[in-house]
């Protein structure tokens, strides 16, 4: 291990900008001659737009454009990552509270805000649906016009997609179960609440357009903008400065197409920085009802799992349906289950479009299935740790017949978490413990390119299209280059976030970047090494096969030279550089239920010790242990930050976070005062994270992806501890004091 290289924790690349305030996020970038944009929205979810009068708004000094759907190309373009269903501006009818019906561009923010208030929209409020039950009622209105879903047999319903997965014959084996446990568990609507609200800018750029966005997937945005504007990709330049937190909410295009049209219409740069409240109306996680029916033998071994997961997605699909299929598909967990039947539905509603959110559709069924397992353990008189160990897949076991076999020693992770929490040791009265496991499939497909330039002085520039939104990808890529090319980390620059400069990367999601882009960076470094080998062979008159390049050293027969001793003479009087290219591809598998098998699994075990205030229902977490199998931590300090952060973020949906909708479909707790996320005061009294490193991942040096694992099973672990402490079983999240208190009141007296 070197001070800079793999397994070390050098200071974050980009860290100095973050602690001095010089890091430029989208909202910090000032474009010359910019116009400020403000959205016009209605005060209800669903309404028929009768007319829009922009005349008063246009009279406001400084206003340059009031854009309505009528000013857009007709029919109004629609876009989306999975379905092209989201219009640039609402067409005829709004579908959720906060959907823009018009937008104002003005010389100042004040003028834009004033004019937006003066856009007079006459509208007729229409009946709308905000729940799964209402959406599935045949008497309810359709959220989407069937015309935008041609050739879709479900277009006449509010079910966007119904996914069926499984193996074995549940009905045939059900009779052999000694115990069947069936319950329904609900998971709330929560929002990402990145501290950086979403922001978008666009400007005419020669014969093309430049777009700045808080986006996680700049190349995907480039494709959306190019398609919608009819431009070649090369004429759409996307700048994606490091996002100030993403968590999935910033994966896909939202308002960039609108701002792009406004920039082209005005011929000037346009800037739309959302407020936090507007960001709440832009992104959320799908709320979910999961019914689990599971059969067990008397020794605790699973016989079958029969799972129905209904996810309430929003008015437009965004990437929500993919979270439904991926989360539903993995819902039988990391266990050996002879027969599995899963149905997962994405159900449309007149609410904020839900999208990817750390855990990507998995935390919802994990909450249900892990809680169900605890209920079975109690009925069978088996310890919750023991029932999990009896069912857990062993390394190499094809626990899901159509997918990647178990790729880790998962039992080791579970046993370590149990050891750390002191599982089985006596507890004082009023305290309880809970343990749960979470597993998530990594990326199913992927394509990442990287270019690495070794400059004449030995310094290095790495190009990687990943977005560094806090996970520390820049640092990890720099460490890989330091390890392979011998440069100190201070001599390495990592360039990201500019589609005109940085090679293509599919996306930053699914904890993929260390593995997929990391392998591309590694391959590019190895390409540079190959050129160094050829250079050394030429300079020293040896066969190329006799030369080895390793960690900044060129090994020739009989002697080792620093890279620079080959590079400088090899490049000669004109100088120059060596350029390496790397590619990492994980191809689609058309016959796979998800279109591709898991590149790796994120596996976590969480164990907590809790105490409940019987008078208030308030839960105190005395200890919270989270153990993740990461393969190999390339940067242990950053890995710890990701694990602890995901664990605490998981406490949000477990204990406090949920949207509250009113009868008009407005989010009542919009903004930071009424929507609580964990603060420093909500930390468990003791939070301990550990990693398991067996070097068994597909990424560089045996790494796996690792940024979501410790969020996955926080809720079932905490609920199990509450049950252990108080005897009450709660099947609805979040476990607010009120909910816990009510459950305590209803507890049967012994």
């Amino acid at each position, binding site marked *: 291990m070197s001070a800079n290289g793999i397994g070390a924790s050098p200071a974050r690349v980009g860290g100095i900008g973050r*602690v001095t305030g010089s890091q430029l996020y989208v909202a910090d970038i000032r474009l010359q001659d910019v116009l400020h944009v403000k959205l016009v929205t209605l005060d209800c979810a669903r309404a028929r737009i009768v007319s829009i009068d922009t005349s008063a708004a246009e009279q406001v000094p400084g206003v340059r454009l009031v854009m309505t759907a009528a000013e857009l190309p007709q029919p109004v373009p629609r876009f989306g990552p999975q379905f092209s269903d989201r219009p640039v501006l609402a067409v005829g009818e709004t579908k959720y509270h906060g959907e823009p019906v018009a937008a104002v561009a003005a010389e100042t923010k004040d003028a834009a805000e004033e004019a937006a208030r003066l856009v007079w929209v006459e509208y007729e409020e229409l009946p709308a649906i905000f729940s799964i039950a209402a959406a599935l009622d045949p008497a309810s209105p359709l959220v989407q016009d069937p015309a935008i879903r041609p050739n879709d047999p479900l277009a006449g319903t509010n079910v966007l997609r119904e996914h069926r997965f499984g193996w074995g014959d549940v009905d045939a084996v059900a009779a052999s179960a000694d115990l069947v446990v069936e319950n329904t568990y609900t998971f709330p609507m929560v929002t990402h609440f990145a501290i950086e609200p979403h922001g978008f800018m666009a400007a005419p750029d020669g014969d093309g357009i430049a777009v700045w966005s808080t986006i996680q997937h700049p190349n995907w945005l480039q494709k959306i903008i190019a398609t919608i504007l009819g431009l070649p990709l090369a004429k759409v330049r996307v700048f994606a400065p490091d996002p100030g937190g993403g968590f999935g909410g910033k994966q896909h295009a939202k308002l960039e197409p609108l701002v792009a049209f406004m920039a082209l219409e005005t011929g000037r740069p346009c800037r739309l920085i959302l*407020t936090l409240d507007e960001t709440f109306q832009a992104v959320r996680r799908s709320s979910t009802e999961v019914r689990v029916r599971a059969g067990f033998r008397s020794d605790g071994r699973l016989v079958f799992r029969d799972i129905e997961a209904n996810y309430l997605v929003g008015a437009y699909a965004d990437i929500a349906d993919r979270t439904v299929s991926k989360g539903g598909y993995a819902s039988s967990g990391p266990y050996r289950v002879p027969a599995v039947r899963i149905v997962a539905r994405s159900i449309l509603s007149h609410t904020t479009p839900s999208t990817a959110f750390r855990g990507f559709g998995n935390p919802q069924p994990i909450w249900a299935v892990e809680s169900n397992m605890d209920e079975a353990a109690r009925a069978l008189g088996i310890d919750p740790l023991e029932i999990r160990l009896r069912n857990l897949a062993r390394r190499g076991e094809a626990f899901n017949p159509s997918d990647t076999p178990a790729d880790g020693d998962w039992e080791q992770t579970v046993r370590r978490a149990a050891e750390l929490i002191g599982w089985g040791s006596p507890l004082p009265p009023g305290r309880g413990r809970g343990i749960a496991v979470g597993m998530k499939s990594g990326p199913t497909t992927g394509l990442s390119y990287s270019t690495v330039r070794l400059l004449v002085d030995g310094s290095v520039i790495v190009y990687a299209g990943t977005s560094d939104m806090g996970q520390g990808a820049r640092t990890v890529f720099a460490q890989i280059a330091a390890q392979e090319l011998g440069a100190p980390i201070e001599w390495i620059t990592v360039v990201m976030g500019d589609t005109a400069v940085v090679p293509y990367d599919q996306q930053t999601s699914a904890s993929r970047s260390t593995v997929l882009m990391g392998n591309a960076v590694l391959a590019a470094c190895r390409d540079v090494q190959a050129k160094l080998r050829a250079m050394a062979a030429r300079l020293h008159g040896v066969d190329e096969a006799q030369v080895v390049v390793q960690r900044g050293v060129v090994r020739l027969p009989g002697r080792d030279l620093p890279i620079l001793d080959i590079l400088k003479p090899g490049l000669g009087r004109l100088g120059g550089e060596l350029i390496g290219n790397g590619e990492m591809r994980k191809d689609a598998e058309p016959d796979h239920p998800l279109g591709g098998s898991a590149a790796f699994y994120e596996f976590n075990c969480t164990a907590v010790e809790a105490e409940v205030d019987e008078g208030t229902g308030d839960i105190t977490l005395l200890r919270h242990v989270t153990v993740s199998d990461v393969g190999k931590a390339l940067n242990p300090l950053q890995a710890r930050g990701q694990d602890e952060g995901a664990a605490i973020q998981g406490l949000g949906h477990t204990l406090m976070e949920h949207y509250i909708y009113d009868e008009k479909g407005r989010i009542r707790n919009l903004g930071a005062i009424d929507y609580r996320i964990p603060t*420093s005061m909500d930390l468990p009294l003791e939070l301990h994270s550990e990693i398991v490193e067996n070097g068994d991942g597909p990424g560089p040096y045996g790494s796996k992806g690792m940024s979501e694992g410790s969020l996955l099973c926080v809720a079932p672990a905490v609920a199990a501890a509450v049950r252990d402490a108080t005897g009450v079983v709660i099947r609805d999240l979040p476990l607010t004091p009120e909910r816990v208190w009510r459950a305590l009141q209803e507890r049967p007296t012994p």
Partner: protein
Amino acid sequence: MTAMIPIQVTVNGRARALVVATHHTLLDVLRDDLGLTGTKECCLVGECGACTVMLDGRVVDSCLVLAVEADRAQVTTVEGLAHDGHLSPLQQAFLDKGAAQCGFCIPGQLMAAHALLAENPHPTIPEILEGLAGNLCRCAGYQQISEAVLAAAEAADR
């Protein structure tokens, strides 16, 4: 018409004369008039702490202070923490402990921590957690942030 008022404010030791709109906040003026974008904008209701600055030695949410209220005041922002190109011990500790992840809340965290240490140079971890309770971090790096503040306090003793 927007009413405009002249103010004089000293920001990070530099005296500035400005004419500001009466409804604009100190946050607006720092970011939009002075180009000091290190101070961040998030909730605008004084809950998230991203816009935390020091105003005459007090820690404030600059989104809740009208710019005119800062007339003749001393303001310190995150840009004022480093001196002569050297990071402050607090900034260095944030780097060393991995406390800055996405970084968006960090200027506010640093200013709140700066104020905390000015008032209580030897805080315990519970005192640090309480002192930073008004600064949200969605990366939830609270544990590493509090370790950084503790390390900075200890470094000041050496």
